[in-house]
């Protein structure tokens, strides 16, 4: 039962990804062509409100429902890791028109071919884990 809240939040995630057309390949293409404010508005407004959340967590004004402090672990530094990994991700994002969240949501829309993309993404994660020590970070 402790998992049902994550399922419900996930449903909200799937609905908002769908209704705001974030799952649309065309919206991603349009974003990278700078032909619409839509995606920038979504990410920008989420980040601005997210900053307020992070401030409340950091100042311990909001704790978890169990009363624990919320600690957001820092991301790993490293120019190569973040830049090269980011570029590779961006190439795939613009080709698939979907980042990992929307990929899963598209299953719910009955898109069979997205399973190939998800298989590829899992394979990609496996290849990263396999060659991690040979890559610059």
């Amino acid at each position, binding site marked *: 039962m402790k*998992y049902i809240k*994550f399922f*419900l*939040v*996930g*449903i909200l*995630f*799937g*609905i*908002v*990804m769908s*209704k*705001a*057309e974030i799952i649309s*390949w*065309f*919206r991603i293409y349009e974003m990278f*062509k700078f*032909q619409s404010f*839509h995606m920038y*508005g*979504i990410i920008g*407004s*989420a*980040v601005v*409100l*997210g*900053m307020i*959340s*992070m401030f409340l967590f950091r100042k311990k004004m909001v704790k978890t429902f169990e009363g624990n402090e919320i600690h*957001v672990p820092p*991301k790993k530094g490293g120019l190569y*890791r*973040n830049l*090269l*990994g*980011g*570029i590779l*991700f*961006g*190439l795939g*994002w*613009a*080709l698939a*028109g*979907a*980042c990992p969240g929307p990929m*899963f949501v*598209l299953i*719910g829309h009955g*898109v069979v071919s997205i399973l*190939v*993309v998800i298989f590829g993404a*899992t394979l*990609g*994660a*496996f*290849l*990263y*884990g396999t060659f991690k020590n040979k890559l610059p970070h």
Partner: protein
Amino acid sequence: MEFITQPWAWYVAGPIIAIIMFLLYYFGERFGVSSNLETFCSIGGAGRFVDYFKIDWKQNSWNLIFVAGGITGGFIASQWLSPSNAVAINPQTIQDLADIGIQNAGASYLPDEIFSIETMLTLKGFLILLVAGVMVGFGARWAGGCTSGHAIVGLSNLELPSLISVVGFFIGGLVMTWLILPLLF
């Protein structure tokens, strides 16, 4: 009900995404979808070959449940909340896509030239889907996050690594959109 069934504006969607992130932290977890890909590898037994995947994946169960909810939410939206799958993209975008060989842009969520079953069953079509996925998965884990973990959480938390990653996302995305996509179709 019309408020729900029409496409949602950015100023509705962005705040809801922020609320989703807030709730996941409030529930004692975090917001990041691409780490599930590593969990899949661990469940599939990748830990037998690569130590990196030797993790107790059960601690990430909540995230798998979140993803299952996302799939369910997509199903609910497609079945009951969306009278039309048309996407009202910029007419210039439609023209630009027609010029590179993608027709009927915006008539549905996805272009048939990439996602139709017929395309998937061709070698080229299958490879495009597969390679796109590999780049997303490899890149996200190398960078340590995807759009959720870096662009939303990391930028919200004023993380320099996330800013660098997001710059990378855009370099890659712009190269694909402006230079590579026109060559593919």
